């Protein structure tokens, strides 16, 4: 074997930021192979996937619209991931945030108050945080894996959504469709650019990114979480509270996922339907990793993932391919990133004579 991995004396900072780029290039290469295998012209495929969705202002606004929930959720998840708190049920927290916000919107359907939207925002955050509090409670009290519990609750949340839209909250004039009434104007987020669907939720997402950045890099609690993630024994020795880390990690993720759910029902959807589950909660896991759990990284990664979503939709319309091809690209991206990360801690060396 002429080449072998050799441990680096210290982690390479250059590769830490270089490996996402390597992963993107490998994903593009993988896409090239995929298109050829499918008998499609790769250049045409790439055009449909990566250029057509964003060729005009409306396209760009749709990209930001799709990136918004990804940014929100990934920011919250990154807080937990840094401390090795694995919340993978953001999809469920997203849905429960949407349900809670919908409850407020329906309760004040006849109100024109300016306070309806802030109340929905708070309700969304609480709904998501409460759903994430279940795995946090079970983890800290009963030592139960937060991975499996948060994931199981995704399915339960989907049934909660299904129950409210088929049952108590069904629009009586909705021709029996499983959906609520359309929200009143006072319960809809203002549009940022006239003629597009991009709402102020985008600004909330940016604010969350900035807040998340300062929490993780400047606050004592953020520091404690970093230490817990990198060296648990050191954190214990320093007297940092393990349960507190778990609670902060899960509740931050849940609250922001809930806000994302609120921004969807009060934004592009305008109502709660049986199809509120969009996969953003799972895609945001990829965003958090590809973005290196950092604010700037998450910003770019969520744009890239949003582009893959839109590319998938375009591929359905113009290439006659199932939209799940977007998911295939998203999964490939994470795979390649995890693989490329080996170069952060190792480097390839030509091996000398066999030992």
């Amino acid at each position, binding site marked *: 074997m002429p080449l072998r991995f050799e441990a680096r004396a210290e982690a390479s900072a250059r590769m830490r930021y270089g490996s996402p780029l390597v992963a993107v290039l490998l994903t593009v290469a993988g896409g090239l192979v995929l298109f050829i295998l499918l008998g499609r012209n790769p250049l045409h495929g790439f055009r449909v996937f990566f250029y057509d969705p964003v060729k005009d202002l409306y396209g760009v606004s749709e990209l930001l619209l799709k990136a918004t929930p990804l940014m929100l959720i990934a920011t919250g998840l990154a807080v937990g991931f840094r401390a090795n708190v694995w919340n*993978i049920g953001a999809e469920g927290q997203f849905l429960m945030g949407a349900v809670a916000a919908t409850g407020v919107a329906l309760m004040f359907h006849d109100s024109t108050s300016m306070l309806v939207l802030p109340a929905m925002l708070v309700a969304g955050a609480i709904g998501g945080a409460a759903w994430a509090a279940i795995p946090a409670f079970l983890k800290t009290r*009963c030592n*139960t894996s937060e991975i499996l519990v948060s994931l199981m609750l995704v399915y339960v949340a989907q049934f909660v959504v299904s129950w409210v839209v088929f049952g108590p909250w069904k629009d009586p004039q909705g021709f029996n469709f499983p959906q609520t009434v359309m929200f009143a104007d006072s319960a809809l987020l203002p549009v940022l650019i006239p003629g597009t669907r991009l709402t102020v939720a985008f600004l909330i997402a940016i604010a969350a990114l900035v807040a998340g950045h300062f929490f993780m890099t400047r606050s004592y609690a953020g520091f404690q979480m970093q230490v817990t993630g990198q060296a648990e024994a050191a954190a214990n020795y320093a007297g940092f509270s393990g349960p507190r880390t778990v609670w902060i990690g899960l509740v931050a993720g849940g609250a922001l996922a809930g806000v994302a759910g609120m921004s969807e029902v009060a934004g592009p959807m305008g109502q709660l339907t049986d199809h509120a589950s969009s996969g953003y909660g799972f895609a945001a*896991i990829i965003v958090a990793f590809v973005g290196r759990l950092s604010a700037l990284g998450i910003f770019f990664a969520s744009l890239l993932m949003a582009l893959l979503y839109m590319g998938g939709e375009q591929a359905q319309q113009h290439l006659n391919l199932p939209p799940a091809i977007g*998911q295939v690209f998203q999964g490939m991206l994470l795979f390649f990133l995890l693989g490329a990360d080996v170069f952060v801690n190792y480097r390839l060396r030509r091996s000398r004579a066999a030992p």
Partner: protein
Amino acid sequence: MTFAMDASLVTPIVSASIVAGTPLVIAALGELVTEKSGVLNLGVEGMMAIGAVTGFVAAQHSGSTIIGVLAAMVAGAASALAFAILVLDLTANQVASGLALAIFGVGLAAFAGKPYESVVLPPVRALPIPLLADIPLLGPALFDQQWLVYFSWALCAGVAWFLYRSRAGLVLRAVGESPASAHAVGYRVIRIRYFATMFGGAMAGIAGAFLSLFYTPMWSEGLVAGRGWIALALVVFGTWRPLRVLVGAYLFGGVLIAQLFVQGSGLPLEIPPQLLSSLPYIATVAVLVIISRNPNTIRLNSPVSLGQPYRPDA
């Protein structure tokens, strides 16, 4: 609820619970072997989805169920191989890589299976075991099943024998408990972990094929519906013991069937169907809580090096 007393219902309910539990048995036993070697592969859901699609497509084109199951097995092992390269050779984080496999596998299966969504295959016939199937009540429930059900029993016995009675199983467990010691004694830790991980993938693939060929028999995007995750929970629930995993899987099968049975019974119950449908997932959380509440249960039973990367720096 007098209907529960009706003896004529025992056979179909037990039988259906076993069928519903079988994919969980197969996937969980595969994951059990993987975890015993110290590798935590969270991608079971994705491997099952890939297996389900591959098995379905192969069976549809070849007209043979066996070829479908074998194809699913190979596809599951191949997807586990991709995971193994990441975590074993490239020392990637096992949790993140498993999640990647789960997301990627579900996406790939949805993509590849789209053209087959409306196709229905003939169901696989049951294979009654002579004499045993004639035992009253439990005979038809246990011994008049599709052949993969019998396979799952053989698998359970085989895995138990392998882990606790064979030398190779002892080595595998040693690798999971202390890779550094196993390496020092001269065992090839990475290679053994590759085999264990691919075995887990192969079983997840077969479990997926059970869903798409034996259980429904058709492919749809949400077919696996979290069973891969439930299988992961079952390994914890069974405290890494094959027989307990089997029993746990049938209990889950029972929960799955009970909720379908109540929903289909037309009983005048004021229970929303969604609550019943969510019962298996709530039950998973409940058993995890019961098992994990005593920290010693997990500490004493789980492989010590589970989830930790290891590189022999020779």
